[in-house]
């Protein structure tokens, strides 16, 4: 096991990792930017090191400074959390060269699953269900049109090097396809340094269902079932839950096993999430693989009773998986609501400033993941998520009631948050029925 882990992240996920390390008996080094100076969670680390100015490029994205901090603190491993450098294969390589363990996959495995075209090819070889579409990047406009003719409109154009909803465009016919293609290629080249695009069938009413996988360095991989993350706005998840409502047990089993095959085939170790879209007939098509721990990982921890962050650290240290597939059992239902510092009434405008009143919910089955305390100043430099409120209960209806109860207790003032929106969603008929699609929230907000 490592002696000292440096956490190359901030906020709630940094706190999550600090907690896991303390429970494992591993020392922690937190790095922080000037914008995060004085943040209360920093004192929970054994050491903290200022690495630069507020802008992420000067701090949390600055590889040289993070590695220097690891060197002067004698950290033997780095946990990248999510976002920032978590899916940066170059960073993973620099860690390896500096003989610091990157808590995540090897740069090679990360690149293999991170590149959408390469990942699709590996998926095909391992019978992981895919969208009908081009066999890889489209060579030219005519090739794209031929593919679209075969699979039928509407189609979606995606950047091979993109992700998280960026660099995508839907085309309903040949004209918009040709026009969209040119634009997409230009944008992709500018944004990701790679103009390759591919074409997939576009599903109009789909649910986002993802499978959590954990793998060790000894070839073992285990899935922890799925999460349904269909409540989204502009491709950003707002609510996640597990298990996915109404999913047929056999279909679930098939897609989870497929995710495990893919992760094994990439010689991957660590935490990975294989994302799918599920159509109304419960056919799955793989979207992409996230080669890191995800924001919503606690949803899975609640229904399985397993600790994903600790397991990541253990497997990175060379330990075998602490549990086998047969040890994974699902109990009850869990829901997560992301608490963002946003003003829903003003089109989700970020709401920065000092939180003068912070009264978190509690009681049975409530888990709050946040670094925020009374008096905390939300810095303007980073994303607006200030916490995650989770509940766990015996079944979905009870979990929704519990979430509603917890949301009512939760007071954050004076900044605006998504708490009121979540309260509305817990009362919404469609959400209560379950199985909403990925455009549900946007339709609801338009009303």
């Amino acid at each position, binding site marked *: 096991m490592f002696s000292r882990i440096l956490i190359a992240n901030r906020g709630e996920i940094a706190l999550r990792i600090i907690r896991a390390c303390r429970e494992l008996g591993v020392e922690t080094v937190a790095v*922080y930017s*000037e914008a995060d*100076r*004085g943040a209360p969670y*920093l*004192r929970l680390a*054994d*050491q*903290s*090191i*200022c*690495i*630069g*100015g507020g802008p992420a490029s000067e*701090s949390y994205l600055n590889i*040289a*400074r993070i*590695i*220097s*901090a690891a*060197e*002067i*603190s004698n950290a033997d491993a780095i946990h990248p959390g999510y976002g920032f450098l978590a899916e940066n294969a170059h960073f993973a390589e620099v860690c390896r060269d*500096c003989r610091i363990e990157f808590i995540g996959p090897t740069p090679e495995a990360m690149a293999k699953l991170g590149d959408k075209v390469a990942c699709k090819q590996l998926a095909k070889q391992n019978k992981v269900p895919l969208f009908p579409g081009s066999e890889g990047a489209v060579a030219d406009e005519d090739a794209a049109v031929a593919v679209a003719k075969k699979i039928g409109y509407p189609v979606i154009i995606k950047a091979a090097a993109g992700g998280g909803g960026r660099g995508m465009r839907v085309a309903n016919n040949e004209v918009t396809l040709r026009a969209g293609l040119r634009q997409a290629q230009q944008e992709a080249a500018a944004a990701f340094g790679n103009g390759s695009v591919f074409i997939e069938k576009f599903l109009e009413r789909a649910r986002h269902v993802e499978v959590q996988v954990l793998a060790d360095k000894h070839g073992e991989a285990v899935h922890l079932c799925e999460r349904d993350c269909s409540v989204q706005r502009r491709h950003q998840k707002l609510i996640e839950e597990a298990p996915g409502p109404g999913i047929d047990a056999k279909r679930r089993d098939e897609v989870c096993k497929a995710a495990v095959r893919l992760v094994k085939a990439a010689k991957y170790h660590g935490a990975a999430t294989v994302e799918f879209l599920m159509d109304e007939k419960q056919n799955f098509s793989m979207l992409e693989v996230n080669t890191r721990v995800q924001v919503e990982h606690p949803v899975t921890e609640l229904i399985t009773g397993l600790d994903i962050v600790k397991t990541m650290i253990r497997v990175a240290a060379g330990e075998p998986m602490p549990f086998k597939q047969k040890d994974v059992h699902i109990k009850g239902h869990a829901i997560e609501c992301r608490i963002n510092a946003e003003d829903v009434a003003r089109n989700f405008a970020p709401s920065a400033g000092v939180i003068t009143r912070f009264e978190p919910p509690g009681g049975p089955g409530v888990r709050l993941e946040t670094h925020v305390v009374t*008096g905390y100043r939300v810095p303007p430099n980073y994303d607006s998520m200030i916490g995650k409120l989770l509940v766990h209960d015996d079944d979905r209806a009870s979990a929704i009631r519990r979430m509603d109860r917890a949301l009512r207790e939760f007071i954050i003032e004076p900044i605006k948050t998504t708490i009121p929106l979540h309260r509305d969603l817990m009362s919404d008929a469609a959400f209560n029925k379950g199985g909403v699609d990925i455009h549900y929230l946007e339709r609801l907000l338009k009303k």
Partner: protein
Amino acid sequence: MVDYRRLKELIKLMTENDLSELELRDQQETVVIKRGGAAAQGVPYIAAAPATALRPAAATDAAPGVEDEEAGLRPIVSPMVGTFYSAPDPESPAFVSVGSNVSPETVVCIVEAMKVFSEIKAECSGRVEKVLVKSGEPVEYGQRLFLVRAA
């Protein structure tokens, strides 16, 4: 950590001038002192953000900024994370010491990171009053290395 004597002075200052809230900020820490309400025995509420130096024990580094600003001392801070060296190599004398005169281009120390040795320049003019770090010690971004009395 905040100097206790200084803290007492500040509390005295607040009480004498009937101040209800005082906030002090410097490179290392922020101290906020709030006096209780009408009650004569109101205990001041003190919240000090932790000194975030690598050594969690008592700080051997800079005194609170208020004093330095008043005295006209300007800090030279580290622009990077790494290990501080006061001399170009173990055999040579230090770049600067207390009493040295510096100008903006004067190299005052080296900070080493990932085997790369970077020369740090004074970027100010004056006389070195205090050397705050020992050679071989780790330094973080923004950490005060020297105090210079402006020319």
